[in-house]
């Protein structure tokens, strides 16, 4: 009996099965992860198209940014909070854009996220501020967004904005108050 040659006596006989495993295992993994990631895609977008401070993002011909941000004193802000006002120019370039309300996210730390807070601050729904994309029209406009954030949030922040035609991509414009 030749023990040296018999240490891996079966690999030649099982070569086809091994080759099938080499192909099938990664294929299975890829199929499952692709299907699962598609089924969990967020309605707010999964794929950021980013712009640093002072830059803009163009998706589907629509330009977003560059944005600016500043902290403002606001009597309606509760203790332990502060208000960030973000101005975000949007140029639809002759198209219509029906965006979802942009969200504000800390660029570092825990990445805390807040929503536009005009309602919470009592600004009313029909004030002069443009807090959402116009229902009709193709002219450039500037969103004026007020965010109630925690008092220890110092920025920089990401302003995340998307619209149905751009999904799953979303524009991520960085602002630094």
């Amino acid at each position: 009996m030749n023990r040296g040659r018999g240490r891996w006596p079966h690999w030649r006989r099982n070569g086809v099965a091994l080759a099938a495993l080499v192909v099938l295992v990664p294929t299975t993994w890829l199929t499952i992860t692709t299907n699962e990631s598609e089924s969990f895609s967020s309605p707010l977008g999964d794929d950021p198209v980013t712009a640093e401070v002072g830059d803009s993002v163009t998706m589907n011909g629509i330009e977003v940014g560059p944005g600016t941000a500043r902290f403002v004193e606001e009597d309606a802000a509760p203790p332990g909070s502060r208000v960030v006002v973000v101005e975000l120019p949007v140029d639809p370039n002759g198209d219509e854009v029906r965006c979802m309300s942009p969200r504000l996210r800390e660029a570092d730390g825990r990445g805390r996220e807040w929503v536009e807070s005009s309602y919470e601050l009592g600004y009313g729904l029909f004030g002069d501020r443009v807090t959402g994309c116009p229902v009709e029209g193709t002219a450039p406009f500037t969103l004026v967004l007020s965010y109630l954030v925690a008092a220890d949030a110092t920025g920089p922040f990401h302003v995340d904005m998307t619209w149905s035609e751009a999904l799953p991509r979303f524009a991520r414009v960085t602002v630094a108050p």
Partner: protein
Amino acid sequence: MSRRISWLAGIALVVAAWFVAFATPAEDAREAPFVVRAEVGQKAEGRDIAARVDGLRRADAVTAARWRAEGNWLIVDLTVSSRVTTSGAFLGNATLHADGRAYYASERPTSLHRQRLYADLPRSGSIAFELPPDLTPGIATLRLGGSTDERLDSVLEITLDVGGIAPGAEEELRTTQWSTW
């Protein structure tokens, strides 16, 4: 290999298999929530929720704004916030476990239940549990979270001494408002 060694190896493997079976977590353990326990008055922090039970009240009738209902009510005064997200963050799970049963917070009055949570911006208010008329729980457990689907997420668990509270005739739910820790 001698017969003796074979027997010893076999017995060792059976013992090892018993230890493996003993140490194996239950089938649902891989989806179990991460429980954070706290006491009344103590802030509990989970992955994306933080809460503190400020007080407990029992009453034969509860009012909230212009709403009123009689019953066997347990009112939990709370301060709560999310920790990371605001869009999609709600106090979706407020469940009282008492006497082997689970009771969801009532949806009848306007309360903190199912209200939006703001990242690190606490809000205070109340939730109310309408219990069966003959139920007077001694010790109960309050579970708080973002969703009634507790799998693989933080759940805050606060032990409540309900038996030690004398019921009042009528109690009003706290108005939901901004607060501090």
